[in-house]
């Protein structure tokens, strides 16, 4: 994918934000985030990581304890939600059950006192966009989950906000529908050049949809970058473990040669990994290696470790092999199912290894 991320124009800026509900525990700590006009930014993290609170502060339903939020330079963090002109799609959609689809979608225009005819025209147009024109007179209760989702989307778009927030909008849908709607949301976001801030705990959703991803944990942004960056160059162990699958080998740093760190594992084996800022001589470090970066062979090769196959799982397009190393560690190896690579049997002795650039020596 090309990097289509727009340049940093400081469209929406969150600076030094902290948020505490009870005055002692911080849900968000020292958050600094600059959102670019027209970008699709995903806040990804486990539950309780502060991503939803951040979204709520952007929307105006929560106010930051300290710090400020600006949109195009103007501070908005004390402004009530109705003044911010930000569209929002809620988890479980929050459609009004006592209104028809058209009334739901037209609500934002009605409260802005847009003339009746204009409301009808714009509601009709946006329903067209989300393919719901035929259902305008239904009530939300008569719609399927996917249709409700589209109404929620239409409702957030109809008053033409420049920023749209989405709080796990696809969480309640099944996989097929979710993938379809992911694509549609992307299309719409691009067509209207929307700035989208999207909250999810589904990493695949984040990887496929976003221009940039902010990984949240423990109230902080752990890493902010494009999907490729986040996946290929994790900055710390949390990101490495949270995004995609990773093999983590813990060891003590015995030597640092330029970019290469040597880690001695518990059983004495020394492995090589790319040194990051976390690595200190003599300290503990975790090396993260993607399962697909591992090479497995029947014969030993340069830098390979001997291992025993514990299990081999056929997953259609790939084979996942779990191998036990000499010590207590084990690794998962992913190999393409159609490749000529070996199809290991349980109990078989194999050799696994990796290029040092593919392993990241991170914090312990």
């Amino acid at each position, binding site marked *: 994918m090309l990097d289509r991320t727009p340049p940093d124009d400081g469209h929406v800026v969150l600076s030094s934000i902290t948020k505490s509900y009870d005055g002692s525990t911080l849900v968000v700590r020292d958050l600094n985030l600059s959102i670019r006009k027209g970008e699709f930014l995903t806040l990804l993290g486990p539950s309780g990581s502060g991503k939803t609170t951040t979204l709520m502060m952007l929307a105006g*339903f929560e106010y930051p304890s300290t710090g400020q939020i600006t949109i195009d330079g103007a501070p908005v963090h004390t402004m009530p939600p109705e003044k911010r002109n930000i*569209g929002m799609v809620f988890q479980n959609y929050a459609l009004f059950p*006592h209104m028809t689809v058209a009334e739901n979608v037209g609500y934002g225009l009605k409260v*802005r006192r847009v003339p009746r005819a204009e409301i009808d025209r714009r509601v009709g147009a946006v329903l067209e966009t989300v393919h719901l024109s035929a259902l305008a007179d239904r009530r939300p209760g008569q719609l399927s989950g996917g249709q409700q989702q589209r109404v929620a989307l239409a409702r957030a778009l109809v008053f033409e906000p420049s920023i749209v927030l989405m709080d796990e909008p696809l969480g309640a849908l099944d996989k097929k529908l979710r993938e379809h709607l992911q694509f549609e949301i992307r299309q719409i976001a691009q067509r209207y050049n929307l700035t989208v801030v999207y909250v999810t705990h589904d990493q695949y959703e984040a990887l496929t949809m976003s221009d940039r991803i902010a990984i949240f944990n423990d109230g902080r942004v752990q890493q902010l970058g494009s999907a490729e960056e986040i996946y290929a160059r994790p900055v710390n162990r949390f990101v490495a473990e949270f995004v995609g699958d990773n093999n983590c080998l813990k060891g003590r740093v015995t030597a640092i040669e330029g970019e290469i760190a040597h880690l001695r594992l518990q059983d004495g084996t020394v492995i090589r990994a790319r040194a990051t800022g976390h690595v200190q001589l003599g300290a503990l470090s975790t090396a993260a290696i993607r399962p697909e970066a591992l090479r497995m062979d029947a014969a030993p090769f340069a830098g390979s470790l001997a291992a025993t196959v514990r299990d081999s799982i056929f997953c259609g397009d790939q084979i996942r092999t779990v191998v036990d190393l000499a010590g207590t560690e084990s690794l998962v190896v992913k190999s393409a199912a159609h490749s000529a690579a070996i199809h290991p049997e349980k109990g078989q002795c194999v050799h696994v290894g990796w290029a040092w650039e593919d392993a990241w020596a991170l914090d312990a």
Partner: protein
Amino acid sequence: MNLSPSATSQTARRQKAPLRHRLGPVLPALPMLAFLALFLVVPLAIIGKTALSDPEVSAALPQALAYAADGVPDDAGFAALVADLVEAKKAGLMRPLARRLEYGVAGGSAAVTDLARIADAELAAQDPAAIRLAVTGSNPIWSQPGIWQAIDQGAAPWSLFYLKWALGVPVKATPDGQPASDGIHDFGTIYLRTIVISLLVTGLTVVIGYPLAYVVATSSGMIGKVLIFLVLLPFWTSLLVRTMSWIVVLQKNGVMNDLLLAGGLTAEPLPLLYTRFATILAMVQIQLPFTVLPMISVMRAIPPSHVRAARSMGAGPVSAHVSVFMPQAVPGIAAGALLTFVLCLGFYLTPALVGGPGDQMVSFFIARFTNEQLNWGLASALSLVLIAGATVIALPLSRYVFRHSSGRF
């Protein structure tokens, strides 16, 4: 996706289950159904029977009835009357007859008592003209049409006499047969008063209860818990105690007057007790939980995200509340209002203790006719009117509530 084969087979399998299986789900409710039958259906049937039964005249005066249809009868009618009375005296039917005829004509009771004093076998044996003279001599009312109309009124053992009375139709006549003004019991006014007081109390509990229910339903912390505790607190003291405490608060030297005097809002104690104000105040306090609890239950089910969604679309807090929250709370408001209104219609104790004579509702008169005047027929008829009225008013509303409650009640 083709669903039809499985759908067809499902329809085919849905045959009627055996009776045993269909009754199964109802079985646990049987004790309650038995209870209802015994303590609701049976008493209702008895009330209905009492309201319609009118046996005194036909039992005591079987022969005289035939002569009573056209006002004052000829001599033969008087002879039949005396013959009936002689028998009635033996059978002990005099007292009920006197009471029943008094309902129909002013002075009817005295006329029966006076006649009973002279009616014996000796008089019955005399010729009709002499009997007539003796009867009219005992009490001149017997020569006037009023009492004969009253006898004709009670000709059948079943009649709508008490129901008509309870519905405000004039049933009592003066001795000369003109409708008597029954000024004490203007039932039309009493029904209207009952409905007006109930509506006022219902309206006030809704107005006071709505914000309370909103705060309880939407606040998650201590405030909500404390408020719900305060709402439920009155349930833990008896109705009588609560009403009596209003007497303490509202009496001439009570708390309220002390406060008003201390605040300089009034120069001398106000007559607060035994007024419509006291009645409504006490009833609102008693009914508030009944209005509030269904509201809370419905409001709790409204997701907070709905109001947030409205706000995010540009609606201010008030506008979002009115256009999104309130419409969804309407079934709860209706349920609470309905409950309070129906309960208010039957209020007895509170108006009786803190209200004045002009604040008494239908139940007060039902109790009075049952306990003091022993006019069970009228008491039963009033009860029937109250039940029917409450049903007519409440039924459409409760249908609405049930349709919109989506199984929450």
